[in-house]
C-alpha cells in the first residue's frame, strides 16, 4: 500500500488534566479535501494546530510521507494556515503580506515580487496591492490570507474556520472558490469547520469529531446515508431518529414500534437488531414525502402540521402524530406547492422502507 501523505497515529493532546484530543487516528491522501467537523471544543482546531506544529501532541505520532513530524518546529514545516482571524500583518501592505513567506525562504526580491503578483492576480486582490490591511473589507482580507499562504506553493493548505467571519452571501461565493482552487491546485486542503453544510459542500471526506474523538470518517454522502452513531445522525442535521422496539419479520425486514407508529426498514447487512431489543432508525428528512392521502404502500404516518419553516427554496415541515411522536420532512418548494400545509392540518408522511437505516447497536 502506498504511504499516505499525512498520518495521525493515536494522537492525543492534554491541557492540564483535560484532553482536548483524546485519541485520533486517520490518514490523508495527497490532493484530498478533508474537513474536520464537530461542535466547538471537539478537538478539531487542536488537531489542525498539531499538524501545523503550533501545538505539540502529548502522545502519538504525526507523520508526513512516513516521516515523524512531531519535533519539527512550525517554521520548519510546509503547512501554511489560513487563520480564522486572518492574522494578517497590520503594519504591512497587502503585497508585503503576500511576500512575507517568500521572504523567509530568501527568495530574491524580483522573483518574490513576481510570485506575489501572480497570486494576488489569481485571488483578485492585485488592485489594492499597496493598501494597508485596515483599509480592506472582510472578504478582501480573506483573499489576502489565502494568497499569503498559497504563494508558498505548499503541498497542503490548512484552513481554520475560513468562512465563519464572512457575510452569508460572501460565504457561499468563497466556498465555491475554495473548491475551485482545490481542484485547480491539486494540493491537499485540510479545513476545520463547525458547519456541516460547509463541510459537506466542500470536502471529499469529512472527519466528524466529538469530545476529542473521531465519530465517523467518510464521504459526505456516506455520512448522510449511513451515520455511524446517534451523535453523527443528530449533528449532521436533517435526520429523523425513531427509537423503539424492533421485531424481525418473516421476510427478514424489521418492524419498529416507535412513537410515530409501526415503521418498517430493511435489516442491515450485518449486526441488525434482534426481536425485542431497542433500536434506532434514521430516516433522512429529505426522503419523507408529504401527501394529503395515503396509498397503502411503504411507511405511512398520519400527522398534523406543527410548523413550516422556509429556508431559501427548501421547506422543513415539522409534524406531530396523534400519539405525540415527532417527525420532520424537508421538501423543495415546488414539490409541495399543491399540498395544503396549514398549521394543524393532518397530512400523510410517507417514505419507502429502503430509505431508512438502523444505527449500529
Amino acid at each position: 500500500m502506498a504511504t499516505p501523505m499525512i498520518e495521525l497515529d493515536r494522537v492525543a493532546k492534554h491541557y492540564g488534566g483535560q484532553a482536548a484530543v483524546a485519541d485520533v487516528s486517520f490518514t490523508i491522501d495527497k490532493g484530498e479535501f478533508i474537513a474536520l467537523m464537530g461542535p466547538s471544543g471537539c478537538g478539531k482546531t487542536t488537531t489542525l494546530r498539531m499538524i501545523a506544529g503550533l501545538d505539540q501532541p502529548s502522545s502519538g505520532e504525526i507523520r508526513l510521507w512516513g516521516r515523524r513530524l512531531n519535533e519539527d518546529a512550525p517554521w520548519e514545516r510546509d503547512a501554511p494556515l489560513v487563520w480564522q482571524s486572518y492574522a494578517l500583518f497590520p503594519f504591512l501592505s497587502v503585497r508585503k503580506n503576500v511576500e512575507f513567506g517568500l521572504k523567509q525562504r530568501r527568495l530574491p526580491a524580483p522573483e518574490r515580487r513576481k510570485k506575489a503578483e501572480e497570486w494576488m492576480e489569481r485571488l483578485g486582490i492585485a488592485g489594492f496591492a499597496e493598501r494597508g490591511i485596515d483599509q480592506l473589507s472582510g472578504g478582501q482580507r480573506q483573499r489576502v490570507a489565502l494568497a499569503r499562504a498559497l504563494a508558498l506553493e505548499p503541498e497542503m493548505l490548512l484552513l481554520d474556520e475560513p468562512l465563519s467571519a464572512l457575510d452569508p452571501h460572501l460565504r457561499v461565493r468563497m466556498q465555491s472558490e475554495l473548491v475551485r482552487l482545490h481542484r485547480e491546485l491539486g494540493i491537499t486542503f485540510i479545513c476545520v469547520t463547525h458547519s456541516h453544510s460547509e463541510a459537506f459542500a466542500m470536502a471529499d471526506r469529512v472527519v466528524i469529531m466529538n469530545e476529542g474523538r473521531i465519530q465517523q470518517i467518510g464521504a459526505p454522502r456516506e455520512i448522510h446515508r449511513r451515520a455511524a452513531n446517534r451523535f453523527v445522525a443528530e449533528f449532521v442535521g436533517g435526520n429523523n431518529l425513531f427509537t423503539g422496539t424492533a421485531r424481525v419479520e418473516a421476510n427478514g425486514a424489521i418492524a419498529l414500534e416507535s412513537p410515530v407508529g409501526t415503521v418498517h426498514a430493511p435489516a442491515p447487512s450485518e449486526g441488525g437488531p434482534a426481536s425485542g431489543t431497542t433500536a434506532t432508525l434514521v430516516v433522512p428528512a429529505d426522503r419523507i414525502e408529504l401527501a394529503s392521502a395515503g396509498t397503502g404502500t411503504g411507511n405511512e404516518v398520519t400527522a398534523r402540521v406543527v410548523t413550516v419553516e422556509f429556508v431559501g427554496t427548501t421547506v422543513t415541515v415539522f409534524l406531530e402524530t396523534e400519539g405525540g411522536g415527532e417527525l420532520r420532512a424537508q421538501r423543495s418548494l415546488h414539490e409541495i406547492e399543491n399540498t395544503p400545509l396549514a398549521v394543524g392540518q393532518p397530512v400523510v408522511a410517507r417514505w419507502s422502507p429502503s430509505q431508512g437505516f438502523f444505527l449500529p447497536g
Partner: protein
Amino acid sequence: MSMAALRRLLLLAYTALVFAFIFAPIVSTIVFSFNADRFPSLPWGGFSLQWYEAIFADATIQRGLTNSLVVAGATCIIATFLGFSAAYVDYRYRFLGKSVYLALAALPPTVPVVILGVALLTFEGRVGLSGTLQGIIVGHVVLSTPFAMALVRMRLADLDPDIERAAWNLGASPWATMFGVIVPFCLPAILAALFLTAAVSFDEFMIAWFVSGVNETLPVRVLAMLQGQVSPRINAIGAIVFGVSITLIVLAQLLLGRLSGRAARRKG
C-alpha cells in the same frame, strides 16, 4: 446671555486661568531670557541674545550640556531596549511569579528620587562607578526603563497573539519573527519610548546631583550657578532645556496619539 453660554464662558475662563498658572513661570523664563536688562523686571529692557551668547561661551555650561546629551542619548537607547525586552517577556510568556516580576519592573519611579539617588551613590561608590557619566546613565536607566516598558506593553496589548504564530507558520524563525513582525509592530511605541526616556533623563536632577561628582549634567550645573548668583543666563538655559524636553515629549505624544487613533478606528 443664557445660562448655558454663561457656564461655557466661565469654564473657558477657568481653564485659561489654570493654564496661565501652570505656564506663567515658564513663559516668564523664556521672555526674560531675551531681556537686555540684568534683572528680570518690567518694563522690558529690550530684546537681546546676550544671555544665550554668554551661556554658549561658558565652558562649564557647555560641558554640562554635552554631558546631559550623552547621558540622555545612552539612557534612552539602553532603557528602551530593556523596556522592550521586559514588555515582550510579559507578552509572550506565562511563568510562576509573573506578577512579582511586573511589580518589580514597575517599581523604580515609585521610589522617592532622593532615596534612589542616595542608594545609587553608595552602591556605585562600591563598584567604582560614582562620579562617572556611566554612573549617571545607570541611575537614569533604572528610573526611566519602566516608562519604556509601559509604552511597549500598551502597544503589545493590541497585537493578536495569532500574528506571531502566523509568522512562524509562514516559515519565519523566532528571530526572524522578532525583527520582521514584533519590532515593526512596536516601532511607534519604541520611538515614543526613546523620546520619553531621553526627556526623563535630560530633565533629571536628583540622581545626577548625587552621582555626578565633577561630571555635572546641565540641571546640576544650573543649580550650582543659582547657588552662587542669580544671573539671567539661568533663564536662557531654562528656555533651552524646556525647548528640548517639550519637543521630545510632544514627539512621543504624537506617536502615541497616532497609535490610539488607529486602535480606536479598528474597534469602531
